[in-house]
Protein backbone atom coordinates (compact mmCIF):
# COMPACT_ATOMS: atom_id res chain seq x y z
CA UNK A 1 0.00 0.00 0.00
CA UNK A 2 2.22 2.72 -1.32
CA UNK A 3 1.71 6.14 0.21
CA UNK A 4 3.50 7.95 -2.57
CA UNK A 5 1.43 10.78 -3.98
CA UNK A 6 2.04 13.84 -6.10
CA UNK A 7 2.92 17.14 -4.52
CA UNK A 8 -0.45 18.49 -5.62
CA UNK A 9 -2.32 15.70 -3.87
CA UNK A 10 -0.22 15.89 -0.75
CA UNK A 11 -0.90 19.58 -0.40
CA UNK A 12 -4.61 18.90 -0.84
CA UNK A 13 -4.53 16.96 2.43
CA UNK A 14 -4.15 20.33 4.11
CA UNK A 15 -7.46 22.19 4.35
CA UNK A 16 -8.23 25.85 4.82
CA UNK A 17 -8.28 26.59 8.54
CA UNK A 18 -6.05 23.66 9.49
CA UNK A 19 -3.49 23.83 12.23
CA UNK A 20 -0.24 22.62 10.69
CA UNK A 21 3.00 21.63 12.37
CA UNK A 22 6.11 22.30 10.32
CA UNK A 23 9.26 20.23 10.73
CA UNK A 24 12.83 21.44 10.98
CA UNK A 25 14.25 24.37 12.93
CA UNK A 26 15.05 27.96 11.89
CA UNK A 27 16.94 27.73 8.56
CA UNK A 28 17.10 23.93 8.44
CA UNK A 29 15.02 21.17 6.92
CA UNK A 30 11.58 22.76 6.74
CA UNK A 31 9.35 21.26 4.00
CA UNK A 32 9.49 24.41 1.90
CA UNK A 33 8.51 22.90 -1.45
CA UNK A 34 5.31 21.64 0.15
CA UNK A 35 4.68 25.03 1.73
CA UNK A 36 5.17 26.69 -1.65
CA UNK A 37 2.52 24.36 -3.05
CA UNK A 38 0.10 25.32 -0.26
CA UNK A 39 0.62 28.94 -1.21
CA UNK A 40 0.18 28.15 -4.90
CA UNK A 41 -3.07 26.34 -4.15
CA UNK A 42 -4.24 29.38 -2.18
CA UNK A 43 -4.64 27.74 1.21
CA UNK A 44 -5.94 30.18 3.83
CA UNK A 45 -6.41 30.62 7.58
CA UNK A 46 -3.72 28.20 8.59
CA UNK A 47 -2.43 28.08 12.15
CA UNK A 48 1.30 27.39 12.13
CA UNK A 49 2.97 25.35 14.87
CA UNK A 50 6.72 25.28 15.29
CA UNK A 51 9.36 25.71 17.97
CA UNK A 52 11.61 28.03 15.94
CA UNK A 53 10.92 29.00 12.32
CA UNK A 54 12.25 31.35 9.69
CA UNK A 55 11.32 31.46 6.00
CA UNK A 56 8.60 28.83 6.45
CA UNK A 57 6.56 30.95 8.85
CA UNK A 58 7.51 34.24 7.23
CA UNK A 59 6.36 32.93 3.83
CA UNK A 60 2.95 31.77 5.01
CA UNK A 61 2.38 35.05 6.84
CA UNK A 62 3.62 37.17 3.94
CA UNK A 63 1.33 35.40 1.47
CA UNK A 64 -1.77 35.72 3.62
CA UNK A 65 -1.97 31.95 4.11
CA UNK A 66 -1.76 32.08 7.91
CA UNK A 67 -4.10 33.41 10.52
CA UNK A 68 -2.11 32.44 13.61
CA UNK A 69 1.39 31.40 14.59
CA UNK A 70 2.14 29.27 17.65
CA UNK A 71 5.90 29.36 17.93
CA UNK A 72 8.79 30.13 20.22
CA UNK A 73 10.86 32.10 17.72
CA UNK A 74 10.32 33.55 14.26
CA UNK A 75 13.34 35.01 12.52
CA UNK A 76 16.35 34.39 10.31
CA UNK A 77 18.80 34.33 13.22
CA UNK A 78 21.85 36.50 12.68
CA UNK A 79 21.92 35.46 9.06
CA UNK A 80 19.17 37.86 8.00
CA UNK A 81 17.53 39.04 11.18
CA UNK A 82 13.85 39.86 11.39
CA UNK A 83 11.01 38.01 9.71
CA UNK A 84 9.27 41.02 8.25
CA UNK A 85 6.34 39.18 6.70
CA UNK A 86 5.48 37.70 10.07
CA UNK A 87 6.05 40.97 11.85
CA UNK A 88 3.92 43.05 9.55
CA UNK A 89 1.06 40.58 9.50
CA UNK A 90 1.00 40.39 13.29
CA UNK A 91 1.27 44.13 13.74
CA UNK A 92 -1.54 44.71 11.22
CA UNK A 93 -3.77 42.25 13.04
CA UNK A 94 -3.94 39.85 10.11
CA UNK A 95 -2.11 37.12 12.03
CA UNK A 96 -2.39 36.29 15.71
CA UNK A 97 0.92 35.62 17.44
CA UNK A 98 0.34 32.96 20.09
CA UNK A 99 3.79 33.05 21.53
CA UNK A 100 5.13 29.88 23.06
CA UNK A 101 8.40 28.94 24.59
CA UNK A 102 9.96 26.21 22.43
CA UNK A 103 9.56 23.85 25.38
CA UNK A 104 5.86 24.63 25.74
CA UNK A 105 5.36 23.69 22.09
CA UNK A 106 7.12 20.44 22.95
CA UNK A 107 4.97 19.95 26.05
CA UNK A 108 1.79 20.60 24.10
CA UNK A 109 2.80 18.12 21.39
CA UNK A 110 3.82 15.58 24.02
CA UNK A 111 0.39 15.76 25.60
CA UNK A 112 -1.22 15.10 22.22
CA UNK A 113 1.22 12.30 21.41
CA UNK A 114 0.47 10.66 24.76
CA UNK A 115 -3.28 11.08 24.48
CA UNK A 116 -3.66 13.25 27.57
CA UNK A 117 -5.29 16.69 27.80
CA UNK A 118 -2.29 18.52 29.24
CA UNK A 119 1.34 18.17 30.23
CA UNK A 120 2.90 19.46 33.46
CA UNK A 121 6.05 21.49 32.92
CA UNK A 122 8.86 22.38 35.30
CA UNK A 123 9.51 25.89 34.15
CA UNK A 124 8.05 29.17 32.93
CA UNK A 125 7.77 30.66 36.42
CA UNK A 126 8.25 34.40 36.27
CA UNK A 127 7.20 34.62 32.63
CA UNK A 128 4.21 36.66 31.49
CA UNK A 129 3.57 33.87 28.96
CA UNK A 130 1.71 31.93 31.65
CA UNK A 131 -0.97 34.59 31.97
CA UNK A 132 -0.84 35.65 28.32
CA UNK A 133 -1.48 32.10 27.13
CA UNK A 134 -3.79 31.07 29.94
CA UNK A 135 -1.59 28.20 31.09
CA UNK A 136 -3.17 26.72 34.23
CA UNK A 137 -1.45 25.75 37.45
CA UNK A 138 -2.64 22.63 39.22
CA UNK A 139 -1.90 21.20 42.63
CA UNK A 140 0.50 18.29 42.93
CA UNK A 141 -1.69 15.39 44.03
CA UNK A 142 1.29 13.63 45.63
CA UNK A 143 2.71 16.37 47.81
CA UNK A 144 3.41 20.05 48.14
CA UNK A 145 3.29 22.69 45.50
CA UNK A 146 1.68 23.49 42.21
CA UNK A 147 2.86 22.88 38.69
CA UNK A 148 2.26 24.79 35.46
CA UNK A 149 0.46 22.82 32.75
CA UNK A 150 0.34 23.19 28.99
CA UNK A 151 -2.79 22.10 27.09
CA UNK A 152 -2.45 19.42 24.42
CA UNK A 153 -1.99 20.59 20.87
CA UNK A 154 -2.86 18.13 18.14
CA UNK A 155 -2.03 19.56 14.72
CA UNK A 156 -4.37 18.59 11.91
CA UNK A 157 -1.39 17.86 9.72
CA UNK A 158 2.36 17.67 10.28
CA UNK A 159 4.53 18.54 7.27
CA UNK A 160 8.01 17.10 7.53
CA UNK A 161 10.96 16.97 5.15
CA UNK A 162 13.25 13.97 5.61
CA UNK A 163 16.30 12.64 3.85
CA UNK A 164 14.97 9.23 2.89
CA UNK A 165 11.62 7.52 2.97
CA UNK A 166 10.26 4.23 1.72
CA UNK A 167 6.96 3.85 -0.07
CA UNK A 168 5.19 2.76 3.11
CA UNK A 169 6.09 6.00 4.86
CA UNK A 170 9.06 5.21 7.06
CA UNK A 171 11.13 8.39 7.18
CA UNK A 172 14.83 8.68 8.00
CA UNK A 173 16.42 11.93 9.12
CA UNK A 174 20.20 12.21 9.22
CA UNK A 175 21.68 14.46 11.85
CA UNK A 176 19.59 16.78 13.98
CA UNK A 177 16.07 15.40 14.26
CA UNK A 178 14.59 18.39 16.09
CA UNK A 179 10.95 17.79 17.14
CA UNK A 180 9.88 16.15 13.91
CA UNK A 181 9.12 12.69 15.27
CA UNK A 182 7.13 14.21 18.11
CA UNK A 183 5.17 16.36 15.63
CA UNK A 184 4.39 13.25 13.61
CA UNK A 185 3.11 11.50 16.73
CA UNK A 186 1.00 14.44 17.82
CA UNK A 187 -0.61 15.21 14.47
CA UNK A 188 -3.76 13.65 13.03
CA UNK A 189 -2.23 13.38 9.56
CA UNK A 190 1.39 13.39 8.46
CA UNK A 191 2.87 14.29 5.09
CA UNK A 192 6.51 13.46 4.44
CA UNK A 193 8.50 15.04 1.68
CA UNK A 194 11.88 13.46 1.09
CA UNK A 195 15.10 13.92 -0.81
CA UNK A 196 14.94 10.30 -1.99
CA UNK A 197 12.54 7.39 -2.00
CA UNK A 198 14.53 4.31 -1.09
CA UNK A 199 13.79 0.66 -0.76
CA UNK A 200 12.50 -0.48 2.61
CA UNK A 201 15.32 -2.99 2.72
CA UNK A 202 17.88 -0.22 2.42
CA UNK A 203 16.48 1.56 5.45
CA UNK A 204 16.51 -1.73 7.35
CA UNK A 205 20.21 -2.16 6.66
CA UNK A 206 21.17 1.30 7.90
CA UNK A 207 22.39 1.47 11.48
CA UNK A 208 20.37 4.66 11.90
CA UNK A 209 17.05 3.34 10.76
CA UNK A 210 14.03 5.53 10.12
CA UNK A 211 12.74 7.31 13.22
CA UNK A 212 9.44 8.41 11.76
CA UNK A 213 7.54 5.14 11.45
CA UNK A 214 5.08 4.22 8.73
CA UNK A 215 2.13 4.04 11.07
CA UNK A 216 2.28 7.83 11.55
CA UNK A 217 2.46 8.71 7.89
CA UNK A 218 -0.34 9.31 5.40
CA UNK A 219 1.49 10.54 2.32
CA UNK A 220 5.01 10.60 0.93
CA UNK A 221 6.26 12.90 -1.83
CA UNK A 222 9.65 12.52 -3.42
CA UNK A 223 11.00 16.05 -3.63
CA UNK A 224 14.73 16.38 -4.12
CA UNK A 225 15.76 19.78 -2.81
CA UNK A 226 12.42 19.88 -0.98
CA UNK A 227 13.78 22.04 1.86
CA UNK A 228 15.06 24.71 -0.51
CA UNK A 229 15.58 27.65 0.03
CA UNK A 230 16.36 26.33 3.51
CA UNK A 231 19.13 23.86 4.27
CA UNK A 232 18.95 20.08 4.31
CA UNK A 233 21.86 18.89 6.49
CA UNK A 234 24.33 16.79 4.57
CA UNK A 235 22.64 17.67 1.27
CA UNK A 236 22.69 21.43 0.72
CA UNK A 237 22.90 24.67 2.62
CA UNK A 238 20.28 27.42 2.65
CA UNK A 239 20.09 29.68 -0.40
CA UNK A 240 21.34 32.95 0.98
CA UNK A 241 20.65 34.92 -2.21
CA UNK A 242 17.05 33.80 -2.40
CA UNK A 243 16.44 34.36 1.30
CA UNK A 244 18.07 37.76 1.24
CA UNK A 245 15.86 38.84 -1.62
CA UNK A 246 12.74 37.43 0.01
CA UNK A 247 13.42 38.80 3.49
CA UNK A 248 13.90 42.26 2.08
CA UNK A 249 10.40 42.36 0.57
CA UNK A 250 8.54 40.09 2.95
CA UNK A 251 6.50 42.91 4.46
CA UNK A 252 5.02 43.79 1.05
CA UNK A 253 2.37 41.27 0.00
CA UNK A 254 2.26 42.35 -3.62
CA UNK A 255 6.00 42.24 -3.97
CA UNK A 256 6.03 38.79 -2.40
CA UNK A 257 3.41 37.52 -4.86
CA UNK A 258 5.44 38.81 -7.79
CA UNK A 259 8.69 37.47 -6.40
CA UNK A 260 7.31 33.98 -5.86
CA UNK A 261 5.64 33.91 -9.28
CA UNK A 262 8.91 34.81 -10.90
CA UNK A 263 11.33 32.77 -8.84
CA UNK A 264 9.15 29.67 -8.56
CA UNK A 265 7.96 29.99 -12.16
CA UNK A 266 4.26 29.87 -11.25
Amino acid at each position, binding site marked *: MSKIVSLTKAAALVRDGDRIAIGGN*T*LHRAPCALLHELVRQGRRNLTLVKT*AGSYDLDLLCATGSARAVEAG*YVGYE*NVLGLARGYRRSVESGQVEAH*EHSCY*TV*IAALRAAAQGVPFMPIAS*LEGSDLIAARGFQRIANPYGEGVVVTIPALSPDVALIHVHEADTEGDGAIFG*ARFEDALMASAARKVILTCERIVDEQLLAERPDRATIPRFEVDAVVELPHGAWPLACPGEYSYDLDFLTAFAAIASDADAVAGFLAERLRW
Partner: protein
Amino acid sequence: MVKAADLMAIVMARLLRDGETVFHGVASPLPMVAILLARRLHAPHLTYLNITGAVGARPTHLPRSTVDAALARGAPAQVTLTDLFDLAARGRLDTVFLSGVQIDRAGRINLSMVPGVRLPGGAGSAALMPTARRTILWRTRHDRRTFVDALPFVTAAGHVDRVVTPLCVFRRISEQLAVESLHSGVTPANLSAATGFSIAVDDSTPRTPAPTGAELATLAQIDPDRIRDTEF
Protein backbone atom coordinates in the same frame (compact mmCIF):
# COMPACT_ATOMS: atom_id res chain seq x y z
CA MET B 1 41.60 48.81 20.69
CA VAL B 2 39.94 45.40 21.12
CA LYS B 3 36.72 45.05 19.15
CA ALA B 4 33.56 44.66 21.22
CA ALA B 5 32.78 41.29 19.64
CA ASP B 6 36.20 39.97 20.63
CA LEU B 7 36.03 41.34 24.13
CA MET B 8 32.55 40.01 24.73
CA ALA B 9 33.40 36.56 23.40
CA ILE B 10 36.44 36.42 25.67
CA VAL B 11 34.59 37.70 28.73
CA MET B 12 31.79 35.19 28.15
CA ALA B 13 34.30 32.38 27.71
CA ARG B 14 35.99 33.24 31.00
CA LEU B 15 32.70 32.78 32.84
CA LEU B 16 32.52 29.11 31.87
CA ARG B 17 33.87 26.44 34.21
CA ASP B 18 35.61 23.27 33.22
CA GLY B 19 33.42 20.19 33.30
CA GLU B 20 30.07 21.95 33.13
CA THR B 21 27.28 21.51 30.62
CA VAL B 22 26.55 24.60 28.59
CA PHE B 23 23.81 25.26 26.05
CA HIS B 24 23.10 27.97 23.50
CA GLY B 25 20.08 28.34 21.27
CA VAL B 26 19.15 30.02 18.01
CA ALA B 27 20.77 33.28 16.92
CA SER B 28 23.70 32.90 19.30
CA PRO B 29 27.04 33.47 17.53
CA LEU B 30 28.79 34.97 20.56
CA PRO B 31 27.88 32.09 22.90
CA MET B 32 28.92 29.60 20.22
CA VAL B 33 32.29 31.26 19.92
CA ALA B 34 32.66 31.72 23.68
CA ILE B 35 31.96 28.07 24.42
CA LEU B 36 34.44 26.81 21.85
CA LEU B 37 36.98 29.34 23.07
CA ALA B 38 36.59 28.29 26.70
CA ARG B 39 37.01 24.68 25.69
CA ARG B 40 40.28 25.52 24.01
CA LEU B 41 41.55 27.72 26.83
CA HIS B 42 40.63 26.62 30.35
CA ALA B 43 37.65 24.27 30.11
CA PRO B 44 38.60 21.29 27.94
CA HIS B 45 35.90 19.14 29.54
CA LEU B 46 33.01 21.49 28.92
CA THR B 47 30.05 19.62 27.45
CA TYR B 48 28.81 21.70 24.55
CA LEU B 49 25.09 21.47 23.83
CA ASN B 50 23.01 23.17 21.17
CA ILE B 51 19.72 22.90 19.31
CA THR B 52 20.88 20.11 17.02
CA GLY B 53 20.85 17.76 20.02
CA ALA B 54 24.51 16.96 19.45
CA VAL B 55 26.47 16.40 22.66
CA GLY B 56 30.08 17.51 22.76
CA ALA B 57 30.31 18.51 19.09
CA ARG B 58 33.68 19.55 17.65
CA PRO B 59 32.84 21.86 14.74
CA THR B 60 35.46 22.27 12.06
CA HIS B 61 34.05 25.58 10.87
CA LEU B 62 31.60 28.02 12.39
CA PRO B 63 28.28 28.74 10.68
CA ARG B 64 26.18 31.89 10.77
CA SER B 65 23.09 29.98 11.85
CA THR B 66 23.68 28.54 15.30
CA VAL B 67 21.37 25.61 14.51
CA ASP B 68 23.54 24.54 11.59
CA ALA B 69 24.58 20.93 11.05
CA ALA B 70 28.17 22.14 11.40
CA LEU B 71 27.45 22.36 15.12
CA ALA B 72 26.65 18.65 15.31
CA ARG B 73 29.93 17.56 13.76
CA GLY B 74 32.22 15.34 15.75
CA ALA B 75 29.69 14.74 18.51
CA PRO B 76 29.92 11.26 20.03
CA ALA B 77 26.32 11.42 21.24
CA GLN B 78 23.14 12.69 19.65
CA VAL B 79 19.93 13.33 21.52
CA THR B 80 17.07 15.71 20.71
CA LEU B 81 16.41 19.27 21.72
CA THR B 82 13.59 17.91 23.84
CA ASP B 83 16.11 15.91 25.87
CA LEU B 84 18.13 19.07 26.50
CA PHE B 85 15.11 21.01 27.70
CA ASP B 86 14.32 18.08 29.99
CA LEU B 87 17.88 18.19 31.30
CA ALA B 88 17.32 21.80 32.29
CA ALA B 89 13.84 21.09 33.64
CA ARG B 90 15.20 18.59 36.14
CA GLY B 91 17.83 21.07 37.29
CA ARG B 92 20.84 19.43 35.68
CA LEU B 93 21.83 21.95 33.00
CA ASP B 94 24.67 24.03 34.39
CA THR B 95 24.75 27.09 32.17
CA VAL B 96 22.65 28.58 29.43
CA PHE B 97 23.38 31.66 27.33
CA LEU B 98 20.33 33.82 26.64
CA SER B 99 19.71 37.30 25.34
CA GLY B 100 16.89 39.82 25.41
CA VAL B 101 15.81 42.69 23.21
CA GLN B 102 15.22 44.41 26.54
CA ILE B 103 16.66 43.60 29.96
CA ASP B 104 15.49 45.06 33.26
CA ARG B 105 17.29 45.72 36.54
CA ALA B 106 16.37 42.26 37.82
CA GLY B 107 17.90 40.60 34.77
CA ARG B 108 14.51 39.71 33.37
CA ILE B 109 14.20 39.77 29.60
CA ASN B 110 11.72 40.73 26.92
CA LEU B 111 11.83 39.08 23.51
CA SER B 112 8.10 39.11 22.86
CA MET B 113 6.73 42.55 22.10
CA VAL B 114 6.96 46.23 22.78
CA PRO B 115 3.73 48.18 22.21
CA GLY B 116 2.99 48.10 18.51
CA VAL B 117 6.00 46.00 17.61
CA ARG B 118 6.14 42.23 17.36
CA LEU B 119 9.52 40.77 18.38
CA PRO B 120 10.89 37.37 17.33
CA GLY B 121 9.87 35.57 20.53
CA GLY B 122 11.77 34.13 23.45
CA ALA B 123 12.60 30.74 21.91
CA GLY B 124 13.68 28.53 24.82
CA SER B 125 14.27 31.31 27.34
CA ALA B 126 11.07 31.09 29.38
CA ALA B 127 11.74 27.41 29.91
CA LEU B 128 15.48 27.57 30.49
CA MET B 129 15.95 30.70 32.55
CA PRO B 130 14.05 29.44 35.61
CA THR B 131 15.46 25.92 35.41
CA ALA B 132 19.09 26.04 34.30
CA ARG B 133 21.40 26.42 37.28
CA ARG B 134 22.83 29.60 35.81
CA THR B 135 21.93 31.94 33.00
CA ILE B 136 24.50 34.18 31.39
CA LEU B 137 22.82 36.96 29.46
CA TRP B 138 24.59 38.76 26.69
CA ARG B 139 23.48 41.75 24.65
CA THR B 140 25.47 43.49 21.94
CA ARG B 141 23.68 46.79 22.39
CA HIS B 142 23.89 48.77 25.61
CA ASP B 143 21.59 51.78 25.66
CA ARG B 144 18.52 53.06 27.47
CA ARG B 145 16.13 51.37 25.03
CA THR B 146 17.76 48.04 25.85
CA PHE B 147 18.51 48.24 29.57
CA VAL B 148 15.19 49.52 30.80
CA ASP B 149 13.56 50.29 34.08
CA ALA B 150 10.39 48.31 33.34
CA LEU B 151 9.58 45.72 30.71
CA PRO B 152 6.30 45.90 28.80
CA PHE B 153 6.33 42.08 28.79
CA VAL B 154 8.44 39.64 30.79
CA THR B 155 9.30 36.82 28.42
CA ALA B 156 11.55 35.06 30.90
CA ALA B 157 12.94 35.41 34.39
CA GLY B 158 15.16 33.22 36.44
CA HIS B 159 18.64 32.34 37.56
CA VAL B 160 20.61 35.12 35.92
CA ASP B 161 24.21 35.23 37.06
CA ARG B 162 25.94 37.69 34.72
CA VAL B 163 25.04 40.05 31.90
CA VAL B 164 27.77 40.78 29.38
CA THR B 165 27.46 43.91 27.20
CA PRO B 166 29.82 45.97 25.05
CA LEU B 167 30.26 48.34 28.00
CA CYS B 168 30.39 46.23 31.13
CA VAL B 169 29.68 43.04 33.00
CA PHE B 170 26.73 43.02 35.37
CA ARG B 171 26.44 40.49 38.14
CA ARG B 172 23.10 39.79 39.71
CA ILE B 173 23.23 40.12 43.49
CA SER B 174 20.11 40.02 45.66
CA GLU B 175 18.02 39.84 42.48
CA GLN B 176 19.42 43.15 41.15
CA LEU B 177 21.99 43.76 38.47
CA ALA B 178 25.14 45.35 39.86
CA VAL B 179 28.12 46.51 37.80
CA GLU B 180 30.90 43.99 38.26
CA SER B 181 33.42 45.53 35.88
CA LEU B 182 33.68 48.27 33.30
CA HIS B 183 35.29 47.55 29.95
CA SER B 184 38.33 49.50 28.87
CA GLY B 185 37.52 53.04 27.72
CA VAL B 186 34.08 53.15 29.35
CA THR B 187 33.60 55.82 32.01
CA PRO B 188 31.16 55.56 34.91
CA ALA B 189 29.26 58.46 33.37
CA ASN B 190 29.06 56.72 29.97
CA LEU B 191 27.64 53.63 31.60
CA SER B 192 25.06 55.46 33.70
CA ALA B 193 23.95 57.42 30.67
CA ALA B 194 23.54 54.24 28.64
CA THR B 195 21.58 52.35 31.28
CA GLY B 196 17.88 52.91 31.84
CA PHE B 197 17.91 52.04 35.52
CA SER B 198 20.05 53.42 38.33
CA ILE B 199 23.35 51.66 38.91
CA ALA B 200 26.16 52.06 41.41
CA VAL B 201 29.28 52.84 39.43
CA ASP B 202 32.22 55.15 40.06
CA ASP B 203 35.96 55.35 39.61
CA SER B 204 36.45 52.55 42.12
CA THR B 205 34.46 50.11 39.99
CA PRO B 206 36.81 47.36 38.77
CA ARG B 207 37.93 47.26 35.16
CA THR B 208 37.33 44.17 33.02
CA PRO B 209 40.73 42.50 32.66
CA ALA B 210 42.03 43.08 29.15
CA PRO B 211 42.11 40.11 26.76
CA THR B 212 45.39 38.30 26.82
CA GLY B 213 47.44 37.58 23.75
CA ALA B 214 46.61 33.90 24.11
CA GLU B 215 42.89 34.62 24.32
CA LEU B 216 42.96 36.80 21.23
CA ALA B 217 45.08 34.36 19.26
CA THR B 218 42.90 31.40 20.11
CA LEU B 219 39.79 33.40 19.30
CA ALA B 220 41.25 34.23 15.88
CA GLN B 221 41.87 30.52 15.28
CA ILE B 222 38.41 29.44 16.34
CA ASP B 223 36.48 32.06 14.43
CA PRO B 224 38.68 33.10 11.51
CA ASP B 225 35.64 34.22 9.49
CA ARG B 226 34.54 36.49 12.36
CA ILE B 227 31.06 35.01 12.62
CA ARG B 228 30.93 36.80 15.95
CA ASP B 229 30.65 40.11 14.12
CA THR B 230 27.24 39.12 12.69
CA GLU B 231 25.67 40.08 15.98
CA PHE B 232 26.72 43.69 15.61
